[in-house]
């Protein structure tokens, strides 16, 4: 019987064949929680049930939402989070970056795992061939207590990218294009799988951007079949070796839908306020910008920083425009520092913000003010998400954000390459 990657991953977690549409109980290999939806929300339920964690070695806690604790509430929540981590003896990455980036960076993921995350961008783990999805705090408490979760075996929506990306065009542009074409409900809470020559050619951090934004398509997961690129990244991260040879969708397996895109003809994209589905080529957008933001799990990993810096090098940003950079992880920021990339941001007058969710999640003191127009490398531009309800957020790649900061208006970055 020909199987999709999603079916194979679920079958591994249950020990039985996975039939599309069936509800099965999966054994969870890893649960990831953060400071916002984690200890403060799950502990009261665990206490109500009178139970501890099912397996402390399979829980990873990462602080990223309230870091650096610059509000009274944030500081209080971080204190509670740290205390819980000590009491429960779970692996805790405190202030080291955003959970979806830190988890693979620290070697916690290997292909074939079934992983549940307490955050909506949890499909990011699909880039590593893990069945990883997000749940709310109540379901997470259930997972922490039992190590189990029910799942309806999804159909697969295959998103195939042929051709090769041109210089100045990246995974973020691919995803904005897909959001525009199939819409924010195009994923139908089924399994999205990215494939094709252009996807195979992407680095792991670029693949993470693809899987991350499966959330914006409404998919449960955003899978990419593991290959040598995956194995090399994970070996470097210190992850245990895994056998991924069978982790791919069989030729001829039943698909729910098959969408085809061509990377070779894709121009840089932007998404107008207030939806990632409002995608259009950057050359067709006309707006001045006040703030340029390089941040979030989606858009401030090492390669995102390198892309923005390649545009900003030797350039001055437009008068009246402010630029802020929140590197996704401390490790990526350190590498960017070593390579002179952070110096380029500093020379351009950028404010460097903590390795945290920050403005993207509307946390902290740097939220957007009234009537501010922002161009952002993040994933979501919903009304009011990043600050005042009158603020306007355009989504774009790190290249396009940097180019627009220089020009003071939305600009195709290829003018600066």
């Amino acid at each position, binding site marked *: 019987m020909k199987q999709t990657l999603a079916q194979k991953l679920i079958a591994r977690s249950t020990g039985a064949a996975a039939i599309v549409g069936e509800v099965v109980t999966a054994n969870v290999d890893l649960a990831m929680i953060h400071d916002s939806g984690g200890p403060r929300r799950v502990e009261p339920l665990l206490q*109500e049930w009178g139970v501890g964690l099912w397996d402390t070695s399979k829980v990873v806690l990462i602080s990223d939402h309230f870091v650096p604790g610059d509000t009274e509430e944030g500081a209080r929540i971080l204190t509670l989070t740290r205390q819980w981590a000590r009491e429960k003896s779970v692996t805790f990455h405190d202030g080291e970056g955003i959970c979806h980036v830190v988890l693979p960076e620290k070697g916690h993921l290997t292909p074939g795992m079934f992983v549940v995350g307490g955050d909506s961008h949890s499909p990011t783990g699909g880039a590593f061939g893990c069945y990883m999805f997000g749940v709310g705090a109540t379901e997470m408490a*259930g997972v922490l*207590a039992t190590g189990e979760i029910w799942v309806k075996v999804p159909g697969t929506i295959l998103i195939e990218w042929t051709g090769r990306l041109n210089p100045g065009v990246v995974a973020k542009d691919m995803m904005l294009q897909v959001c525009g074409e199939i819409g924010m409900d195009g994923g139908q809470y089924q399994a999205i799988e990215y494939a094709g020559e252009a996807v195979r050619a992407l680095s792991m951090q670029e693949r993470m951007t693809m899987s991350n934004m499966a959330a914006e398509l409404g998919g449960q997961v955003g899978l990419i079949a593991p290959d040598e690129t995956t194995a090399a990244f994970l070996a470097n991260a210190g992850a245990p070796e895994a056998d991924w040879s069978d982790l791919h969708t069989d030729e001829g397996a039943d698909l729910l839908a098959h969408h085809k895109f061509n990377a070779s003809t894709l121009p840089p994209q932007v998404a107008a306020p207030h939806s990632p589905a409002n995608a259009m080529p950057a050359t067709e957008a006309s707006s001045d910008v006040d703030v340029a933001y390089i941040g979030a799990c989606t858009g401030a990993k090492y390669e995102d920083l390198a892309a923005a810096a390649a545009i900003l090098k030797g350039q001055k940003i437009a008068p009246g425009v402010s630029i802020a950079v929140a590197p996704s992880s401390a490790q990526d920021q350190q590498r960017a520092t070593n390579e002179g990339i952070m110096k380029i941001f500093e020379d351009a007058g950028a404010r460097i913000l903590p390795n945290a969710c920050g403005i993207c999640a509307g946390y902290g003191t740097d939220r957007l003010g009234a009537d501010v127009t922002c161009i952002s490398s993040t994933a979501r531009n919903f009304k009011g998400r990043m600050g005042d309800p009158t603020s306007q957020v355009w989504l774009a790649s790190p290249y396009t954000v940097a180019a627009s900061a220089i020009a003071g208006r939305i600009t195709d970055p290829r003018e600066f390459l």
Partner: protein
Amino acid sequence: MPRIFLFGDNIDTDQMAPGQHMKGGIEALAAHCLEGVRSEFSSTVKRGDIVVGGKNFGVGSSREQAAEALKHLGVSCVIATSFAGIFYRNALNLGLPAMVASTLDGIEDGAEASIDQRAGTLITNGRTIALEPIPENIAPMLAAGGLVPFLKQRFQGAA
């Protein structure tokens, strides 16, 4: 005998838990549940009644209160030709059975009906309509009233 409340396609979470009443808690949400498509719904629905919708029932946000409002009003089961994924998860985890029907032919608004969740049948107007049965592995959770009471029983029963 339970009665059927029949709705159309794409009933969204804002219809069930209107955003402007979110701050009022579950009582306020339930009082305004589905009023945009059927103003008398919350005042006429009775304990045990059945809500039936077309395709993509529960589309919209991930708010649990959409399913919670129906449950609060006493709705015993939601039937649709398809459900939005997160609503489906939320409904079952809150102890509200959500069942898929292959067709709504023969289902009439206001008609009396009975459901056999394990067999997967809806009997109304003398007809038997097939539903996807409630999966065996989550039936105990539904019987307990949802994930939270189910785990409370499981762990405190074992203690």
